[in-house]
């Protein structure tokens, strides 16, 4: 492990629980390891309590009871962590903004959810806003567009933070999308339930990305990224999609999302 991949870190909390999210857990573990690396480089001790899903699919489908059950499970699992860090804006929004709403009639649990929410952070904003990380010392050669996931942007106020860290990546030049703040059309189950509508929205996003002439599109949410990558690939575009943590951790040398492993052949 490089000792100085992250510079300028401020006072360091001890024990950080990584809430890896189901999508990263199942689809793209690299993002989880990139998060671990960024956190460890900034001086944190990272733990990964046994975990499943934050409950967002249930919550957004109107199944509050299941969402509350999973919330309780997560809150307990991370009880002995100083901080909980999540490499996703939408799961972060669930943990931070919506968990407290789930226990309206249970003051004790509501207070627990509030405490849990206040120690929980989206990954990149945790690095910058809590740990005081100002730059990373990694290289990524290419032109990159950053897509703001809706929850990061609107529920958690993440906008400048990833751009600031990306600006410190050597060899990387950042371009802005015309409609950086417009939804990609993922919306969890929405993408499958309203496939045609979701497609119309992500098609516009893909057009916007192509127009920006970026070689890589980054975001802080794997859900958006699977959607955007899937559309770009279906449309025959060569633009690659990665989680922003992969680039910041210097772990973007493996295949991009939906690309074959080296040696696996096309």
């Amino acid at each position, binding site marked *: 492990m490089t000792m100085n991949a992250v510079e300028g870190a401020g006072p360091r909390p001890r024990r950080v629980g990584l809430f890896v999210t189901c999508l990263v857990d199942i689809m793209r573990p690299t993002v989880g390891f990139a998060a671990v690396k960024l956190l460890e480089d900034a001086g944190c001790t990272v733990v990964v309590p046994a975990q499943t899903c934050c409950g967002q699919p249930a919550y*957004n489908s109107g199944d509050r009871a299941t969402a509350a059950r999973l919330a309780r499970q997560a809150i307990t699992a991370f009880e002995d962590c100083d901080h909980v860090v999540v490499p996703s804006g939408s799961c972060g929004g669930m943990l931070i903004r919506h968990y407290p709403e789930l226990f309206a009639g249970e003051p004790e649990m509501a207070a627990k959810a509030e405490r849990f929410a206040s120690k929980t952070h989206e990954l990149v904003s945790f690095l910058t806003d809590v740990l005081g990380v100002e730059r990373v010392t990694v290289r990524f050669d290419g032109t990159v567009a950053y897509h703001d996931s809706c929850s990061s942007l609107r529920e958690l106020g993440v906008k400048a933070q990833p751009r600031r860290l990306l600006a410190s990546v050597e060899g990387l030049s950042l371009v802005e999308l015309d409609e950086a703040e417009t939804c990609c059309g993922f919306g969890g189950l929405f993408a499958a339930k309203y496939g045609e509508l*979701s497609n119309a929205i992500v098609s516009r996003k893909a057009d916007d990305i192509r127009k920006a002439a970026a070689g890589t599109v980054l975001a802080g949410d794997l859900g958006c990224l699977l959607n955007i990558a899937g559309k770009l690939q279906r449309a025959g575009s060569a633009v690659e999609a990665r989680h922003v943590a992969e680039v910041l951790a210097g772990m973007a040398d493996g295949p991009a999302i939906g690309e074959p492993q080296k040696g696996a052949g096309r």
Partner: protein
Amino acid sequence: MTAVATTPRFKANVHEALTDVRLQGAMTFARNFAGRRAAAAERLPEFEALRDSARAIKDHTLAHLDLYLEAYERKVVESGGHVHFAEDAEAARKIVVGLCKGLGAKSVTKGKSMISEEIGLNAAIEAAGIEAVETDLGEYIIQLRHETPSHIIAPAIHVTARDVEQDFRKAHRELPPERDLSRPEQLLGEARGVLRAKFLAADAGITGANFLIAETGASVIVTNEGNGDLTQILPRAHIVIASIEKIVPTLEDAAQLLRVLARSATGQDASVYTTFSTGPRRAGDPDGPSEYHVVLLDNGRSAMLGGEFEDMLRCIRCGACMNHCPVYQAVGGHAYGWVYPGPMGAVLTPSLIGVAEGGQLPNASTFCGRCEEVCPVRIPLPKMMRHWREREFARGLSPAPQRFGLGAWAFFAARPALYRFATGLAARALHLAGRRKGRFASAPLAGGWTRYRDLAAPQGATFQSRWRAKNGAVK
């Protein structure tokens, strides 16, 4: 109730809208609103604070709505007007048609009113043998086209200038066929000329209201064309139709709300005309109607008071939520299938026509939250849509495959060890299947996804299993 809702066929409507090349061309215009609103908000440093006070004014009013309605009624009566309460659409139609008949009206002019659309007023007036003429340009156009508004402030936003030219040539047969209508000003000039005669001939003028002021008994309309003024001043009677939540306590409150309304709607600092009307013409007034009526419509609104959807009653119908909505921008307003489109329609429609008919709309959202971000009265629209989903779920109205899928998923998610085992198995299997290409072009049970985009294959073992292999189970 008005025209039959096509909301239950929302998905088919979406398909039609997305494959309608003409509509897709016209809808690019709708995307201009967002930038204009942002610029207007930027120009006014106190804009965010104004939004807070706008919300507070509406919340206060809703908490004391009965008192303010009474106060308003008193003021209208004092100024010589009449107030009629209508519990539902049918009652409102009866009252208005009755008033028109009582006047012996042959023709009425109309200012833009979404309440008129909600209650299906034009059809009722015409069924009584009275001509109803929409005087807002957008409304006039869609009336000629026998359509409904596709946007609450820009009703004909789905229509192109070329469409309008054709409609005008068809409708205005008395005008020389060789006239030039290639420029928007020419279309505007022609509509103005045709409507002038209608204004002068009308026996009654019907307008909506942006606000009703309890303190003074005034109704307020904002327009950009001035058509509302001619509608309410020239005929013998002015009939205002408005829903009960349009009440605000004072003139000062209305002024505050006006400051956020136009900026949120079109990005203008103020609309071109803001017109107050208070009762019939008084002795000494140079003009004005001799009769003044207000029809106050409930139509399900009082049932929303005190409940999960009360916040929705703060809505001042600015249209910002739809202007910023990725779904609305993709399909336009008609796909929503009833009167109110966009996020506000997705919340309001099930309230007003029932969740069985309107339930699709609150489901068809990505919860991107941009509507709430721009709503001048800070209505938590995504949260309200989620409330509808919760009601549907609680009543077992959500589609069976969705319930089953979620149930199976929840079963595993509530059992971490089992979850690790199952996801580990699935991730490996999918990885092996998709390894060569890195992704799938089709996948069982994921047709809604893979029909339109590729699906990335998992990288192999899950994060949690890799982590455990490296660090043991404790960490």
